[in-house]
């Protein structure tokens, strides 16, 4: 079949052709970017934290009328309160292990700083080095959180110290995530090396490495150091405390219910509210709520767009078929087969959609660039655009099929009838 008759016919419907092509172009541009946003969010939400998240939950509580923690005596007082709690929690049936901890991945409450090869220079003031988040915990941290130790050793009870919440941390040993260790020592020989914490002049030895542990923050500001975590064997003493608890398999719900009464029994002068006991699944759910929401919203919009565009193609092609009823009859009478008529409309649609997607690709890329310059977006991968192009062409073909088949069923006898 030659293109000439198709092009000649299209020239007669300039407005309709332009409108469909424009609609396809806009749809492609928006859907590509929307699906890209969805892909990014799914990737974010699905990244593993490095924790064994099942059977894990967190208790956050605050003591009433507790000392300030500003002087040594009150730090000791706070530490004894914390040790009492830990003993009470560890004694609960169904509890596998408990660790005091200042935060957890995805909790969005973090203690960040920087570690470096060099000791700090007091004249210089501000921090240098590699950004990291700090997890202050004890020798139970690895087993409670389910972190995988890939090199070196775990903390022992002798490594564990305690300090006031606002005191400067100068630990003698730490465990790093592999990502952070590799960034500090690219040769992979971090184990046993010395680093300096937050511009301190006191050396800290790296005694172990865990495979992976995410930072607590989920905002885009953490993107540059999302896997850089430092575990410090120090109990933080403040007027509040957090305990990560691993329940024995199958006993999570029972242990979560038992925790509040047990803590009140150990010391009633404390605040425990609805939010105080949260499973890690709940923490994860809340942390990624906005991402999930955005993905759903983009999905809904993309779906509506595709439906509207497909329906638009069906509508306009149907109109054209009706308009060319007689001409189709003439062609059939002159010997065109049904399949020729069908192909005619399919090729016509391919031409229009083809033009549309070419413009659409340009629009998609410029929309992506605009989003990149105004919001936190990255460059859209070619794969997304290519998939979008193919999907758009396929939808065009699918949408044109019904009216095109109706056209192919026009009997040749129409040619001889007056309209």
């Amino acid at each position, binding site marked *: 079949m030659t293109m000439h008759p198709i092009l000649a016919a299209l020239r007669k419907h300039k407005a309709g052709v332009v409108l469909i092509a424009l609609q396809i172009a806009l749809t492609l541009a*928006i859907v590509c970017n929307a699906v890209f946003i969805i892909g990014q969010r799914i990737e974010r939400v699905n990244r593993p934290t490095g924790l064994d998240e099942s059977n894990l939950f967190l208790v956050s509580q605050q003591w*009433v009328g507790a000392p300030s923690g500003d002087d040594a005596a009150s730090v000791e007082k706070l530490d004894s309160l914390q040790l009492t709690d830990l003993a009470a929690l560890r004694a609960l049936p169904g509890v596998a292990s408990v660790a005091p901890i200042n935060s957890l991945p995805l909790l969005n409450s973090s203690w960040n700083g920087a570690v470096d090869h060099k000791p700090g220079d007091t004249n210089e003031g*501000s921090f240098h080095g590699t950004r990291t988040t700090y997890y202050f915990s004890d020798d139970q941290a690895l087993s409670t959180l389910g972190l995988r130790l890939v090199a070196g050793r775990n903390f022992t009870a002798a490594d564990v110290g305690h300090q006031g919440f606002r005191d400067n941390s100068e630990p003698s040993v730490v465990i790093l995530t592999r990502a952070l260790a590799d960034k500090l020592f690219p040769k992979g020989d971090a184990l046993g090396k010395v680093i300096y914490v937050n511009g301190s002049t006191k050396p800290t030895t790296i005694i172990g490495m865990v495979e992976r542990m995410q930072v607590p923050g989920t905002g885009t500001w953490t993107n540059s150091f999302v896997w850089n975590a430092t575990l410090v064997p120090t109990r933080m003493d403040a007027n509040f405390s957090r305990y990560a608890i691993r329940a024995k398999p199958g006993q999570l719900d029972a242990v979560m219910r038992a925790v509040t009464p047990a803590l009140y029994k150990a010391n009633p002068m404390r605040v425990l509210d609805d939010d105080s006991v949260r499973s890690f699944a709940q923490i994860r759910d809340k942390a990624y709520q906005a991402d999930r929401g955005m993905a759903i919203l983009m999905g809904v919009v993309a779906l509506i767009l595709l439906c509207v565009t497909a329906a638009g193609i069906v509508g306009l092609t149907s109109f054209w078929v009706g308009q060319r009823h007689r001409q189709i009859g003439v062609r059939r009478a002159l010997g065109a087969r049904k399949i020729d008529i069908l192909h005619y409309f399919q090729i016509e649609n391919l031409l229009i959609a083809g033009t549309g997607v070419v413009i659409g690709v340009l629009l998609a890329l410029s929309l992506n660039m605009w989003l990149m310059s105004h919001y936190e977006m990255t460059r859209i991968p070619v794969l997304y655009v290519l998939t979008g192009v193919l999907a758009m062409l396929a939808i065009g073909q699918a949408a044109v099929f019904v009216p095109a088949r109706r056209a192919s069923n026009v009997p040749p006898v129409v040619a001889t009838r007056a309209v």
Partner: protein
Amino acid sequence: MLAYYLELALRSLKRSPGLTALMVLAIGFGVAASMTTWSVFRAVSGDPIPWKSSQLFVPQIDAWGPKGHRGGDDNEPQDAMNYTDAMALMRDHRAKRQSAMYQISPSVVPAQAGKHPLNVGGHAVYSEFFPMLDAPFLYGSGWDAQDDAQRAAVVVISSKLNEKLFGAVNSVGKTVNIEGKDYRVVGVLDNWNPQPRFYDVVNTGGFSEQVEDVFIPFERAIAVGIPNDGNTNCSETPKESGFVGLQQSSCIWIAYMAELEDAAAVTAYRQYLDGYARAQQTAGRFTWAPNNKLRDLPAFLDHEQVVPSDTKVSLLVALGLLLVCLVNTVGLLLAKFLRRSGEIGVRRALGAPRKAIYLQFLTEAGVVGLTGGVLGLLLTGVGVASVGMVLPKSISDLARLDLSLLVVTLVVAVLATLLAGLYPTFRASRVQPAWQLKSN
């Protein structure tokens, strides 16, 4: 004549129910998606205190110098204050009203035996905080400057906390146990929960689910050592430890707001800030030239990017959807109108002017738009009701279906469809009667 055109429009729409349904659905979905996202955008980008925001200012003082700025040429002073500068500004008291403030999260012990203590959110503020922000009181009022100076144990509580502790009666004069000490209630706020939390964006991030339950005098909170619960940012490690060490450090953790009535007051305050910074430079505390900013509230909210970028992107994408729906409608209306070329030809031949054709077809477009608008209304209702499932609670709670949203939805639907109908109607009006009559 309009009634006749309406009848014609309805008859024409009935003739091709599939096409009509398609247009109505497209308009309905397009409008509903845009209006739902717009309702969220409107809620988060609105001015929280429109009658006064142009008189409220956030002073920023560069207390870290060039080495404290992240990323080279960005010379933006910090968006919060350290204790030293905040106290100096409070002492100098150069604005009409002003308040330093910091976020607190103390525990409150209910008087009734057997009730567990609870944790409340709030701020430590100065007395001028309440009149400056026009905070509405249900009972009583704020405290006065003397209470500030004497570090009085007084508290302003939210109506919610009042209900919880005292059962919704006037509790002014009663005491509340905060962090183990008794505070006299001087005022109960009347359901005050501004969003964004404009007086302390730095610590609340703008939108916060947590209700502000207690406000206590700033210097009182410092004196009894109620620590700050918000963000603390340091450019260097504090030399001393503890909350007292924080107060002596250059770490920033205090929000500050000043009320300046007119342009002259703003200029004077700018000069004052520069003078203050210069004095600090002379004293050797700052080793850099004055680098201050004094933004009014809307500018500060904008600078802090209070409106989440997701909200803006959603609105944009939804508007894109509406645009596609309109292009779709243009195409379908064009098809529909031109199919009736014969009818148009007859009308024109019988003497109908172009204007009549315009009126007839725009009426038809209007009917489609109105129907689409009504569908859009229903879908917007569904959309606004279901944003809670999709967006974080702190934001979704703000999106509301009110009369203005309903009106805007209908108007947008009808106007957009009329706009979409313009070109098809123009084409319809250009139909040559002679050609139409001949060809048939």
